[in-house]
Structures are given as structure tokens and as C-alpha cells.
């Protein structure tokens, strides 16, 4: 009984049709999950993770195949399945106008937890989640990380045997993310619970006992994460050339024969080579003259990229030489900062979303703002773009004071917002034309820019297609093209890569690098720790303040300790947040 699969899918298929569009969310998916472990469901947005979760919980009916949870048929015995498993949907399923206690009471009533058993269970849950002091607070007033933990507590009011967590860590700060993982590990270890957890963060895969890799509705691979990364043994390297910027080195390596992946990582480039390629051959690549090449242990992500690359042979490298013309390269302005921010503050009601932020960005620099949802990144951005007036402080963008010349400054800025702001019912070409004309381009110039965008972003085959019908990766390309129509000298990118698959993200960063090489100044916000490594400098934000600002390698070095001799960006982030909290308590 103990080794019987806790969740089992056979040839599962599910398609959705909306507005004449047909999406095959899942296509012949089969897997078996053993009890007593954390299984990761890994894949980019649109891979079919949520559909799979909903099928397991009996909320959807499959088109073909079957799925059984806890020995029950999820589709036909859905009420019984739902009584036995716990499921936390992506938005946690909390009632924001109910307090923490009221949310717990509601779910305890719905799960028929006896009144006598409640006090003890609540106590355990509050202890586990650290929500004890906040039971009277409305759920809507909790931070993202606390909401996530309350959502989890609500699904756990009656300990389920199988727990389904749908992207529980999206947009949550690294500290909360780490705490959530500690809770999940404890549930599996102490309560013998089985957990299926979906995520788009590849580094989380390594914490699972088994993973299912999902892409476009199909399973790419499944098994323990170690076996997937083990396949990459002897194929991963750290390379650096003295006196050459890692970004330039990366540009010289991507797309070269034998190279699967080249990624900027602080002061070196992480290189993944094709199976069977000879390390000696590597040294002969022109980009690697006089390079220092060290073998490094493989990561799960390397294996995933390798699988994705093998499937889609397209992925032509982006050279980006034609991305910008002379305009942005205007030389002679030296190292004067292009963006200068001093004591920037912004208040919403009683709440300071941005509380005294200062920084300066030089021409051609890639500057990152790293922080969890609610840290104040987007608010800072909107003020920089002149979309939101500042409550206090000064802002200079391209030498113009945004308080007085917002619209002139805006003409020199390209802005790509989180949700891409495309017109879904306009075609790709119409979107490009619209954004070009919004920036005052007309006639031949507009046509030239449109042709340039279609060619440069490889959008020509889709020119007539509605932008709503594009895949997420292509939407992202189009949004970036729209922001570049007027050849801005400064580019603002607000969470440009959330949700897209790792290949699209790499391609996107290649374009950004090319732009920066051509002299465009790039400001980017992200909550992906690894993306911070691609920036020249970055500011780590939490609760409206900048905790640290430096080059990625220096920020990581600052977190070095006997316990963490080689801290990751996430380690550094958590250290900074904890130090800031401690300082606040001491004050």
C-alpha cells in the first residue's frame, strides 16, 4: 500500500478552445508519483502546469486519458478526491476582506475540522508559518510572503495526504521562499505528506526528490533532478579572459559550434558545451584565446536547457549589430550619468512605496533593480518614466528634469511594461505602426522602422497575426520592438522576462547586451536572482529602500561567510534583508 502511486496520470490530454483559438494544454502526459516526497512540476508559463494541477484536483475533465489521486479517479470521484487532498491555487484562494483567523475558520468549517481539534491545529499552523501575531489582520493587508503562508495554512487545516501547490513561490521574496521550502520539507519529513509543487524557477528543481519537466503540454523528461544534471557532467565550464568584459565574451561564444549555453555569471561566463565535444577544442575557439577555463559542477538548469535546445533547433544567435543606429551612440558625452536620482520618495496614502532612493546610471550601462513584489521597483520605474509624480526628491533622465520636461524626456525613453501593453486585437505590424506613430514617426521613417523591427526580432512571419495569438516569448519580442521603434537612448524594462521559458530569456538578454554595447542605457527590474548576475551594477530593494548597490560580484562577495564561502545572489539578498531587519529592530 505504501508504495502505491499517490498520483498517476495515463495519456492525459486536455485542450482549450476560446475565441476560435485552440490550445493544446496537455498532450499525452503520463507519470507516476510515489508517496512521501516532493515532486517538482517544472516548466515555463503555458507549459500546462496549472491544467495538470486542476485535472488532479478534479476541477477539469480531461479530453483523453485518466488521472488518479490517492487511489481515486480525480474525474469521476472528484468530491472524494477533493476531501482528501489539499490544493493551493496560484493566487492562494484567500478572501482578502476576511482576517487571518476568519480565513482559517472558513477553511476549517469547509474541511469539517472538529471544533475540539481546532485550537491545537491552529497553534501548530501559526507556529509553523509565523503568522501568530497577525491573526486579526485582514488577509488583503498581508505581504506577499505572508499571504502565501496563510494560503498554505488554510490548505493544511486538515492535514491532507497529498498537497498540490501551484506556483507557490512566484513573486515572493527570497526569504519567504526559503521559509516556504522549509515548511514543505518538514511536512514531508514529519507528517509523511506527499507534495506536488509547480514552479518556473529552475533552481527550485534541485530541492525536489523528483521532477517532471513540462514544455508545451508534453513531458520532456522526468526523474530525480540529480540524474538530469548528471547527464551534463564534463560539459560545464567557467571561462574568463583577463581584460575582457564577461558580456563581450558571452557574445563571442553564443551560437558557436559546440556551445549549448553561455551565461554571464558575475565576473565570468558559464559555458555549457555539446555532448562529446572535446575540451581541448574549446580552447581553440577564437573567443577563448588566452582564456582561463575551469570545469564546474553541472546544474539542473544546464540539463533543462540542453533538453530544450535539442527539441527546438531554431534558436539562432542574436548578433544585434543592427539593433541601434548611430543616434544612441552619440559619443563625447563622457561618463556623465544619464539617469540621476536623488532622495526619491513616493507615498500612497500612509504607505511609502519608495522611501528615499538615490542612484546614478552611466551611458551604456545595464542597471538592475532586484527585489520581491512590493519592494518598490515598479513605482520607482513609473516615476523615472514620468508616469507618476514623485512625492519628494529629484529625478534627471537624459539630462532633463522630469518635473518640468516629462514629455520631452519621454521621447528619449523606451518603456516595456510588465504586462507588455500590446493591443491584443491588433496585428503585429499594426502594433508596431501604432507605437511608432505614438512617438511621432511617420511616412518612410515609420515604414523603415517597422521593417527593421520585423526583421530584427524575427517577427516577419507573424506580421499579420493578432498579437493576442502570439506565444509569450513572441509577445515579449514584440513588446521590446515596440519600445525601440523611436530609437530611444534609454530603455526601461519592467520585469521583462517573468514567465517566459529559459531559452527565450537567454535570447532576450542577448538583445539587451547588444543594445548596451551600442550605447543604450538599460534599466531593468527583476525578481529572478540569476538575472541580477547579467547586470553591470544592481541595487537590491526591499520595503522601498535600497539595501545595497554595487557590481553583482561585489554584492555576493559582501555576503561571504565561513558558512557560505561561495554565496549565491539569493544568499546575499537574504543576508542583506536580515541585516536590514536587525538594524530596524535595534533602532
Amino acid at each position: 500500500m505504501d508504495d502505491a502511486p499517490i498520483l498517476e496520470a495515463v495519456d492525459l490530454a486536455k485542450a482549450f478552445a476560446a475565441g476560435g483559438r485552440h490550445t493544446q494544454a496537455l498532450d499525452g502526459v503520463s507519470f507516476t508519483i510515489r508517496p512521501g516526497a516532493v515532486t517538482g512540476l517544472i516548466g515555463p508559463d503555458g507549459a500546462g502546469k496549472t491544467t495538470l494541477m486542476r485535472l488532479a484536483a478534479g476541477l477539469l475533465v480531461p479530453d483523453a486519458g485518466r488521472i488518479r489521486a490517492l487511489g481515486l479517479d480525480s474525474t469521476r470521484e472528484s468530491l472524494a478526491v477533493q476531501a482528501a487532498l489539499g490544493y493551493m491555487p496560484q493566487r492562494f484562494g484567500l478572501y482578502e476582506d476576511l482576517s487571518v483567523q476568519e480565513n482559517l475558520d472558513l477553511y476549517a468549517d469547509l474541511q469539517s475540522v472538529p471544533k475540539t481539534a481546532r485550537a491545537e491545529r491552529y497553534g501548530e499552523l501559526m507556529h509553523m508559518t509565523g503568522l501568530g501575531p497577525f491573526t486579526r489582520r485582514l488577509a488583503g493587508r498581508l505581504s506577499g510572503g505572508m499571504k502565501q503562508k496563510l494560503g498554505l495554512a488554510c490548505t493544511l487545516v486538515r492535514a491532507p495526504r497529498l498537497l498540490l501547490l501551484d506556483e507557490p513561490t512566484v513573486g515572493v521574496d527570497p526569504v519567504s521562499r526559503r521559509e516556504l521550502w522549509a515548511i514543505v520539507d518538514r511536512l514531508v519529513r514529519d507528517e509523511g505528506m506527499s507534495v506536488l509543487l509547480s514552479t518556473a524557477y529552475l533552481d527550485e528543481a534541485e530541492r525536489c526528490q523528483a521532477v517532471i519537466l513540462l514544455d508545451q503540454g508534453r513531458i520532456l523528461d522526468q526523474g530525480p533532478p540529480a540524474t538530469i544534471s548528471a547527464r551534463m557532467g564534463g560539459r560545464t565550464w567557467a571561462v574568463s579572459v583577463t581584460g575582457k568584459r564577461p558580456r563581450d565574451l558571452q557574445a563571442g561564444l553564443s551560437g558557436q559550434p559546440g556551445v549549448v549555453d553561455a551565461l554571464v555569471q558575475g565576473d565570468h561566463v558559464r559555458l555549457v558545451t555539446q555532448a562529446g565535444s572535446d575540451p581541448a577544442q574549446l580552447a581553440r575557439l577564437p573567443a577563448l584565446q588566452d582564456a582561463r577555463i575551469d570545469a564546474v559542477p553541472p546544474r539542473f538548469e544546464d540539463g533543462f536547457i540542453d533538453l530544450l535546445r535539442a527539441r527546438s533547433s531554431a534558436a539562432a544567435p542574436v548578433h544585434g549589430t543592427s539593433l541601434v543606429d548611430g543616434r544612441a551612440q552619440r559619443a563625447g558625452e563622457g561618463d556623465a550619468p544619464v539617469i540621476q536620482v536623488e532622495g526619491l520618495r513616493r507615498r500612497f496614502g500612509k504607505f511609502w512605496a519608495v522611501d528615499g532612493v538615490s542612484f546614478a546610471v552611466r551611458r551604456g550601462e545595464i542597471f538592475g533593480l532586484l527585489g520581491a513584489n512590493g519592494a518598490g521597483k515598479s513605482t520607482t520605474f513609473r516615476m523615472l518614466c514620468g508616469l507618476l509624480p514623485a512625492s519628494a526628491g529629484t529625478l534627471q533622465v537624459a539630462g532633463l528634469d522630469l518635473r518640468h520636461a516629462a514629455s520631452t524626456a519621454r521621447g528619449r525613453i523606451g518603456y516595456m511594461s510588465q504586462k507588455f501593453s500590446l493591443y491584443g486585437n491588433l496585428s503585429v505590424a499594426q502594433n508596431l505602426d501604432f507605437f511608432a506613430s505614438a512617438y511621432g514617426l511617420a511616412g518612410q521613417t515609420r515604414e523603415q522602422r517597422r521593417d527593421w523591427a520585423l526583421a530584427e526580432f524575427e517577427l516577419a512571419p507573424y506580421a499579420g497575426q493578432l498579437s493576442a495569438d502570439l506565444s509569450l516569448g513572441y509577445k515579449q519580442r514584440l513588446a521590446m520592438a515596440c519600445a525601440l521603434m523611436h530609437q530611444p537612448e534609454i530603455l526601461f524594462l519592467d520585469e521583462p522576462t517573468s514567465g517566459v521559458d529559459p531559452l527565450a530569456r537567454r535570447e532576450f538578454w542577448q538583445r539587451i547586451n547588444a543594445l548596451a554595447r551600442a550605447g543604450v542605457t538599460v534599466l531593468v527590474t527583476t525578481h529572478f536572482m540569476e538575472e541580477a548576475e547579467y547586470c553591470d551594477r544592481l541595487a537590491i530593494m526591499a520595503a522601498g529602500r535600497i539595501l545595497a548597490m554595487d557590481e553583482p560580484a561585489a554584492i555576493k562577495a559582501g555576503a561571504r561567510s565561513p558558512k557560505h564561502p561561495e554565496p549565491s545572489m539569493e544568499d546575499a539578498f537574504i543576508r542583506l534583508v536580515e541585516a536590514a531587519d536587525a538594524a530596524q529592530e535595534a533602532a
Partner: protein
Amino acid sequence: MSAPEKQPLRGGGLMRLRGLVRKEFLQIVRDPSSIAIAFVMPIFLLVLFGYGVSLDADHVPVALVAEAPSADTADFFASLESSHYFAPLHARTLAAAEQALREGQVHAIVRLRADFAEQLRWPDGAPIQVIVNGVDANTARLTQGYVEGAWGNWLARHAESQGQTLATPVELQQRVWFNSELRSRDYLVPGLVAIIMTLIGTLLTALVMAREWERGTLEALLVTPASMSEVLLGKIIAYFVLGTGGMLLTVGLAVGLFDVPLRGSFWLLWACASLFLLAALGMGLAISAVARNQFVAGQVAIIGTFLPAFLLSGFIFDIDSMPAVVQGITHVIVARYFVSIVQTLFLAGDVWSVVLPNALALLLMAAIFLGVTWRKSRKRLE
């Protein structure tokens, strides 16, 4: 922590239902827009219809033209001035009066010709001329009627003062039943009960259900052992209570503040209102089973139920004077049956021959809408 044990899969329905109902009430109390729709809107509508909107003509501005002023003309004009129906304005010439009519300063002209006093002595009597601005047909007809009435009264009094009786072949004895003062407020305010309950029962319910879809909370509810019928029942109970509150508030204000008589039985009104409320809740839930975002749900609820309840229920416009096709359409408007019940119960009393068939229609409609909702809302996300 206790190890997860095998659990009884169902049972505890009462506990679940109580939890759901309590959740609905907490949400109502905490959400200012629910409070606004349930309590502020009724008061606003009551004040608007109780004080603002009136179908009666009152203090109608009229221009009076006497081409040869005399004691008789002055006496007749004085009788118009003393009436609250008119706000007279003396004009020297017909041309001046016509100018005033064109400019919209007056709605009618009463003209007494130069030979008025002369003609009055003859048995045929004297003719008067009334010119009415016909743009607003309703006011025009009312004004015309009022002037004719005032003229008849004055003639009779005049004849009496001369020691004669006016020779009229048939004398009309008028009696107005049910609303003897002919106050349109007494007729409009009861109908408001139907409008307000449509707002609470349909609009509010459709909105809150759509909000659960939008915010993803329904997904979490659906994966608990609670069945879809329990979720729906929780909403029905909470909004039934809220709707009853709205009904009591409206009836209380109608009787207490606006002096509208309630001639029928309160308990009968209560029972019929409950039937109507069930139908309205059924409509709201049926809408939200189809429209899963608040904007669409709100639009459908307003266009599909609130506006018809306003225009086609007989609340303001008499159904019998509508074209046959429109009359046919009114039969699918739930509010129509309830409006005719409330108007009867308020103004006429317990007229069973009106109340019973309409109540049966309400029962049928409630069963249909709740049935549709039941069938439509499976415990699935598609």
C-alpha cells in the same frame, strides 16, 4: 503534529454551510460597495421617487390673457390663482403670451376674448380659449383637463351666484378608488420595492459571484469538500437576508416617511417578496454562472434585469397602454408580477384574484432560474 489519517470523505454539511454563510456576511459588512447597493441605493431611490419624481402636474405656469378685463374675468382668474395646480402669469396681449409660450416660460395660455362678459349673459355661455404646449404630451393633457375642470367649477359657482342653476344635461359624479388623492407617489413608491430587491438580489449577487471567479477564490472553495450546491446555498441565504432587509427598509420608509398606505396584509407582502427575492437571486446566480468577470456580470444584470424592471414592469409605465408586442415581452420580466402584487397590496388590499396568479408566476420563475443555476454550476472550472 498528527499524521494524516484516513478521513470520512463527506458529512459535516451543516458546519460547511454555516462557515459559508458567515463568510458571506463578513464580506458584505466589510465591502463598502455591498453596503452602498443594499442600503444607500434604496434610500436614494426612495427620496428621488418620493420627493423628486412626480407624474402629477403641479404649479403649472399658465399665461392669462383678458382682452377686456372685467369683474368676471378677474373673478375667474382669481379662481385659477387660488388653485395649487397653476402658477398664473398675467399677460397684456395674446402676442406677449404666445412669446412666453414659445420661450417655455409658460406651458399654456388661457385667453378670454373681448366679448367674454357679453357672451356670459347668454344661455349658451361664454367660450374660453386654451392653448397648450403639446411637446410634453402628458403635462399638456393634464393642464388641459385642469383648466376645463376649473372652468366648469367657476361656471357653476357663477350661475349659483346669479340665482340660477346651470343647465347640464348629465352630471358627472366622480369617485376615485384606491388612490383617492391621485398622488403618484403612492403609486410609485410601492413599485420601488421591486426595483430595490432586483438590485440586491440580482446585481449584487451576480457581482459577488463573479468576483469569486475573478479573484480565484472559487477555485480554492471548489477543491474543498464543499459541494457546489452548498456554495450556492450559502450565497442564497446571505443575500436572501440582505434582500429582506432592503425590503423592510423600503416598506418602512414608504409607510413611515412617505405616508403611503399599506392596505393589504404585511405578511402576505412578506411572503410574495420572498418569492420574488428567490427569483431575483436565481437570476443573479444564473448570470454569474455564465459571466465570470464583474464588468460583464454587472452589464448583463443591469441591461437584462434592472432596466426591464424599471421600464417594463408597470412600475412607472402602465403595461396595458403598451403596444401588444411589448406587452408580450413584459410576461418574461419577473418584476412585472411582483410590481402588480405590491401595487395591489399597498393601494387596494388583499385582492386574492390579483395576488394568487402573480404569486404563482413568481414561484414558477424562481423555480426556473434556480433550476438553471443548479444545472449550469457544476463543480468544474470550465
